[in-house]
């Protein structure tokens, strides 16, 4: 602003007094400050790297990793390159995120709804759970589940059998599972598809019944067929293998969930669900009392009021904060590193340690978590759009 003040001072004053000028000026100043800071930090990083005689490069990702990873979804051998090791870590993170989001949603909603229960014990239990879990750091809870709960399970020699279907020992949990990975994927896909189709059919049926008072039989039949088809696929088509205890300890067959995975999943689910429970509670409370009363006067019972009148309205309040909780869960999976679960962050740490390239590895890490979180946001925003008021 090196304006020549002679003769133009009147104009300058007018400009300085103009609110529109300041609005733009502040934007420009902020932008300049941000750019200066950014260039300072990048320049500093660059100088430091040069001083250590290194250039910013991702070519090390093609080098041989040389370390082994305890569990992986994809085939991995120690002589695979670093990028493949990172993929293994990402795969493990995703299993934790997927399992975590599914279980958190169920447990969180149950705990949230339970806080409205007329049953004294159920109500108190829900409040106790939320109050206790929310106030303890997640890292402590991870150690608690890993060492105090799963750590006290017996050694493989005296493992616990659950009805001969599942086994528990201090190495992990063994559950019945599909005969092959392809079949397992098929089963999961069929289940997810069936759930979505069933929800859609149920809504359709409800809509028809509300609008016409009768009908909806076709949808009921479709639902039954869908249920039977799903049951057939899951029971017969999956070629289930049941874990069998071996004499002297150990288990053959079935799916082994490592103790690290189970402990991380339990801790994450219990922790995040407590927050989700509060979100659900807030959502339900946001629906005005008049809605309850009006629904009750129509002759609906408490369960139907919740399901048909209150919950659909509460969804508007519930979904946006749920988005953050899912993202928190995703980011918090990186803490599972502390209890030896080989997720993305764990593998990345080993990688930067062996290669001495923390900057590059952290760029990859940040990009990965950013993409994961954005994907969750994308899905949740779509979901949010469907439950908003449609004003015409």
């Amino acid at each position, binding site marked *: 602003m090196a304006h020549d003040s002679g003769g133009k001072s009147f104009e300058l004053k007018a400009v300085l007094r103009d609110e529109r000028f300041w609005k733009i000026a502040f934007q420009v100043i902020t932008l300049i400050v941000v750019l200066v800071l950014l260039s300072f930090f990048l*320049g500093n990083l*660059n*100088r430091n*790297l*040069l*001083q*250590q*005689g*290194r*250039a*910013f*490069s*991702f*070519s*090390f*990702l*093609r080098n041989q990793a*040389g*370390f*082994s*990873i*305890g569990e992986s979804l994809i085939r991995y051998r*120690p*002589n695979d390159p670093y*990028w493949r090791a990172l993929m293994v870590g990402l795969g493990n993170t995703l299993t934790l995120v997927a399992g975590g989001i599914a279980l958190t949603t169920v447990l969180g909603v149950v705990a949230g709804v339970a806080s409205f229960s007329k049953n004294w014990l159920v109500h108190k239990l829900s409040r106790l759970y939320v109050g206790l879990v929310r106030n303890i750091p997640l890292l402590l809870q991870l*150690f608690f589940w890993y*060492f105090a709960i799963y*750590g006290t399970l017996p*050694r493989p020699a005296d493992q616990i059998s659950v009805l001969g279907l599942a086994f528990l020992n*201090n*190495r992990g949990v063994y559950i019945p599972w599909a005969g092959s990975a392809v079949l397992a994927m098929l089963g999961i896909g069929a289940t997810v598809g069936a759930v979505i189709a069933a929800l859609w059919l149920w809504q359709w049926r409800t809509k028809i019944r509300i609008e016409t008072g009768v009908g909806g039989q076709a949808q009921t039949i479709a639902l039954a067929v869908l249920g039977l088809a799903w049951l057939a696929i899951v029971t017969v088509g999956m070629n289930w293998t049941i874990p069998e205890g071996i004499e002297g300890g*150990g288990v053959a067959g079935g799916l082994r969930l490592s*103790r*690290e995975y189970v402990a991380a999943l339990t801790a994450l689910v219990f922790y995040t669900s407590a927050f989700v429970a509060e979100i659900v509670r807030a959502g339900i409370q946001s629906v005005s009392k008049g809605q309850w009363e009006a629904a009750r006067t129509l002759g609906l019972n408490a369960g139907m009021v919740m399901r048909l009148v209150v919950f659909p309205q509460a969804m508007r309040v519930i979904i946006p904060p749920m988005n953050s909780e899912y993202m928190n869960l995703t980011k918090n999976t990186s803490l599972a*590193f*502390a*209890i*030896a679960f*080989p997720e993305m962050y*764990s593998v990345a*740490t*080993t990688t*930067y*340690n*062996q*290669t*001495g390239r*923390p900057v*590059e590895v952290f*760029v*990859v890490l940040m*990009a*990965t978590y*950013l*993409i994961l979180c*954005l*994907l969750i*946001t*994308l899905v949740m*925003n779509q979901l949010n759009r469907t439950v908003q008021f449609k004003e015409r």
Partner: protein
Amino acid sequence: MRKWGLLAVALGLTVAACGGETTTTTADGGGTTTGGGGGSRLGVVTGRGQLICGVDGGIPGFSFVDESGTYSGLDVDVCRAVAAAVLGDAEAVEYRRLDSTERFTALSGGEVDMLSRNTTWTISRDTSVGLEFAPTTFFDGQGMLVRADSGIETLEDFAGQAVCVETGTTTELNLTDQMRQLNVDFEPVVFQDADAAYAAYDEGRCEGMTSDKSQLVARRSTLPNPDEHVLLEVTMSKEPLGPVTTNNDSAWFDVVKWVTYGLIQAEEFGITSENIATFEGTENPDIARFLGQEGTLGSDMGLPNDFMVQVITQVGNYGEIYERNVGADSEFALERGQNALWSEGGLMYSPPFR
């Protein structure tokens, strides 16, 4: 639609990340600036009046914090020796506990002046990670700790069994290499924190715990029932452990290197913290130079000429350090073995001080 834009940016980042060779270095005069000239760590340390030394802090005998908060051990004594040489005071050290994953970043980021924490000298760390390794202060090998009643006697017995290991260590790689050679399918359980790794081993998550032998011996003493655990008769690797500084700072590296050699040389000369006074005005020109009574060995690298006198008086020679921390005078009673002087059949050898 802004979300899609953000996603596109993020995807672009990842593509760039996987593209390789995305060198974003600005042409800074073309050549790599060799540091050291302007500001050596040596100047930083003397200016600060204190040495910041990165240690493990959890290995009895090497670096361990007792109830009163005092650090002791072989690694710690190396820090003290450097502080005595540079600042004239072995106590002018601030210890920073670093785990195996953060140690190199802490060092190259300048958070600590040097590392003295069971770091194995390897070529990739020396070259691609950008470190400088001062002489080895402890020659070690990787071992395996198992429960005495587990029935495991060789590495082959680990087929299908779990091994606890600390991440970011050469141990993790050596274990993989050994098992690959033997074609043994084992399950690694990798912890960031050594305490968590030993806890998991102790409660039976893993059949074996692998680390440097000296560390296993030291850690065994802290397990609830030390007698129930034995070391397997295997040595999986060479583990030369010693202090570390960063690349491109020769002045500081020289100081750490020659103070470490000085400890070994002092033992070879037979100079101890007890008898050093008797060497006042010695006839032996080698010793006179070594103790700064003649020549400028110290001032040539920016230290007082009598720097080794300070080191030996306040910390002792290598033999004294060894015996008091891990040798006969300690609870571990480790044999000198490879860590004896070269003149006694060991590997400890200092180039001449002249």
